């Protein structure tokens, strides 16, 4: 349907021709152009005016630590830093191996590093106190109220406060955190370089399997590393990421097992897999989460044992088993897409059924549904927001706490807080969806025309 050219022409005259052909070719289209340019300009104007002049970013700036790790014990943060370095290093190496060019990536890293590492220098927070007088009218009487209103002000070195806040708190004042951030960027760049050197052997199965194994081992490693810290202090974005990581890891394997169960030659396994998948998918995730929260002794000794586990682990359990039921359906679609001849050929070659599935069928099936699986993972990531509904302090719940606890410092700053929380969720799911579409084009799935 779309017939316009997306390539921008070079000269001004060509631009006018292009605009005439695409924007003002009919009267209706011209009207559409005017309306949409107008509304886009209005939106942009409102957004810019809000970000630059109206918003009070102080509340965001001072709570950046709370947004990311909440009340994680100060002297245990090395655990989180190790996890960050592992993840960042692995991402960089993987990117270096499979990406084509390194230069744009390195330039982007450099720019972001320059911004993040210089932005926070010289920043300070202080609270300014203003006297205020309010006239309150209620029940026909007027009352005059005076008091002191405290307003949080970000005293910045050179960067405007909004830039500091919108950088999601990655901008840090000089100190140990600053050094660690610098190391993160160094890892991002160095890892990609190492990956580039390895890319010579990227068709070598040892490299492939090694990287795959590292990715698989990464999540248990991160989780095991948290065992020194009470699960009560897992909070905010860190909690979201942790629940997401565990959910992704286990739901994939549970889904794989269920999908294989659905096509098992034994009817008892088939029936119980189908029954499990349908029952789990029938109720919303929130209902399962609430059920896991409220369950005490209703299910006899099993329920009691389950309810004695920490709430966070119960939630992870629900995420794994709920996500697994959905992943199973996705993988089933992939299994159905593998041509029958593949199975027949491997059987005629004398492969056992385990060999047939592990070596022939499953690699093709999973390859076909990688974009769909990533889609399920995006849904799982967004579902971590639901922890706010069951009294676990994730990013969303933390934002509510920040808002309710600090209204005297900056009242009505809910917009700023929610924008930052939304950015945290949005950035991750957007990056994941980009990964999905990259996988789709790389694997050549779903091509049309």
């Amino acid at each position: 349907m779309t017939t316009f050219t997306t390539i921008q022409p070079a000269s001004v005259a060509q631009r006018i021709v292009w605009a005439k052909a695409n924007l003002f070719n009919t009267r209706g289209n011209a009207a559409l152009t005017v309306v949409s340019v107008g509304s886009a300009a209005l939106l942009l104007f409102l957004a810019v005016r809000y970000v630059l002049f109206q918003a009070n970013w102080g509340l965001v700036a001072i709570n950046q630590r709370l947004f990311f790790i909440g009340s994680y014990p100060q002297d245990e943060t090395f655990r989180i830093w190790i996890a960050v370095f592992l993840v960042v290093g692995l991402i960089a190496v993987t990117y270096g191996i499979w990406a084509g060019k390194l230069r744009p990536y390195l330039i982007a890293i450099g720019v972001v590093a320059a911004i993040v590492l210089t932005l926070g220098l010289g920043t300070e927070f202080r609270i300014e106190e203003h006297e205020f007088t309010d006239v309150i009218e209620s029940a026909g009487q007027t009352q005059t109220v005076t008091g002191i209103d405290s307003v949080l002000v970000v005293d910045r070195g050179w960067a405007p406060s909004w830039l500091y806040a919108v950088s999601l708190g990655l901008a840090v004042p000089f100190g140990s955190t600053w050094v660690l951030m610098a190391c993160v960027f160094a890892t991002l760049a160095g890892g990609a370089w190492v990956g580039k050197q390895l890319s010579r052997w990227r068709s070598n199965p040892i490299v492939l399997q090694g990287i795959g194994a590292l990715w698989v081992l990464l999540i248990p490693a991160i989780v095991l590393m948290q065992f020194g810290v009470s699960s009560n202090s897992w909070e905010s974005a860190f909690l979201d990421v942790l629940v997401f990581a565990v959910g992704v890891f286990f739901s994939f394997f549970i889904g794989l097992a269920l999908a294989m169960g659905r096509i098992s030659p034994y009817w008892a396994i088939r029936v119980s897999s189908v029954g499990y998948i349908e029952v789990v998918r029938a109720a919303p995730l929130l209902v399962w989460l609430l059920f896991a929260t409220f369950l005490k002794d209703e299910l006899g000794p099993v329920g009691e044992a389950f309810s004695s586990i920490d709430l966070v682990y119960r939630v992870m359990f629900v995420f794994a088993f709920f996500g697994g039921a959905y992943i199973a359906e996705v993988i089933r679609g992939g299994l159905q897409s593998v041509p029958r001849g593949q199975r027949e050929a491997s059987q005629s070659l004398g492969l056992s059924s385990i060999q047939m599935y592990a070596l022939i069928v499953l690699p093709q099936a999973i390859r076909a549904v990688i974009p769909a699986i990533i889609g399920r993972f995006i849904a799982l990531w967004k579902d971590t927001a639901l922890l706010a509904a069951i009294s676990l302090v994730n990013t969303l719940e933390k934002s509510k706490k920040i808002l309710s606890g600090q209204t005297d410092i900056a009242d009505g700053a809910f917009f700023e807080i929610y924008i930052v929380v939304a950015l945290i969720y949005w950035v991750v799911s957007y990056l994941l969806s980009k990964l999905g579409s990259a996988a789709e084009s790389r694997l050549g799935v779903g091509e049309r025309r």
Partner: protein
Amino acid sequence: MKEYLSDLWNHSNSRARVVNIVVGLAAAIIAIYLVYSIFSNLFDFRFITGPYGSPDRSSIFVALEVEASDPRWLGMLKGAGNTISVVVFAIALSSFLGLLVGVARLANNPILTRLGKFYVETFRNLPLLLIMFFFAFGVFRSLPQIQSESGISGFLYISNRGLAIPWLEPTNDLWWIWPLALIVAAVVAMWVRRVREQQEELTGRVMRGNTWGLSIFVGLAVVSYLALLLPMRITLPEVVQSEAGFFSYAGGNQLGLGYISALVSLTLYFSAFIAEIVRGSIQAVPHGQVEASASLGFTVYQRFTLIVLPQALRIMIPALNNEYQNANKDSTLAHAIAYGEIVLISNRIVNNAGNLLQTYLFIFVVFIITNLIISMIMNTINKNVQLK
């Protein structure tokens, strides 16, 4: 003995029997254990007759507001009704908005398509609960106070207590017959329309099915309205001040913050997904169809409504079915913003009476039934739009 066991395992027939018996027994034991746990508190369904306890007045329909004196079973049914009343409107609104955005993404205007993409990418990548919190705890809380009377005076008011809109009010005891009469009128009108259209197809005479159907519907509606002695009238909202000086709405219908936030967030969130479905299915219609209809002299509007959309519907409906069921299930998130839907009501009951399994079994049954209804409706539509 060992030989016997290996024989049992190595013959495919006996192996199948062993696996089936072991797995089947295990699954049956788990299932029986669950059912037993539910029904061993059981035959303790007595709690559902106890009083619900606290009022929940957040419904769009006055009849669905839960009173403190209601028995718990009635409270749960009303909660289910509240879920349905937000889901139905959310599905309708998000389908409409999604259709607009999806078509906008395919328009011949590069700026409009980018606006559409911006909309979709924004709402598709945000958690629904965040959008709900944003509206419930942010936007609607910061609306003006009730005494400022903002809105269209005498017709519609909006404040931080909610939205007041014109509504229908029963004037006599037999008002409930009228909605039933409307349904009967609609069925009769559709039947007449179909019969006349069939005749038109058979004989070739112009039978004006649409006109006949519409006029029969309107006629029956008016006649029954008069016959029931004007059972309903429109009431308009107004802001009144009590003697003690407190402001409140009177007349019309008040939509609570929970209801509006849930409706707006569900609509925004799911319209982004529906827009993607609409876009995908329109793109899947072969381009030759558009070219052929253009060469036959159809206008752009006719091309879209008569050629492209009907074919796109065929592709779109299974995906829409899925998305509508998701919307139904995700409406439970509204309990976190204190909208009195089924999960909120059930949680109150669990807190008061402690019958977790029975109450959650009810939620479960409600969702199975509502999802089945959605998929039945969508399958019926699907059957009607498929090629015959």
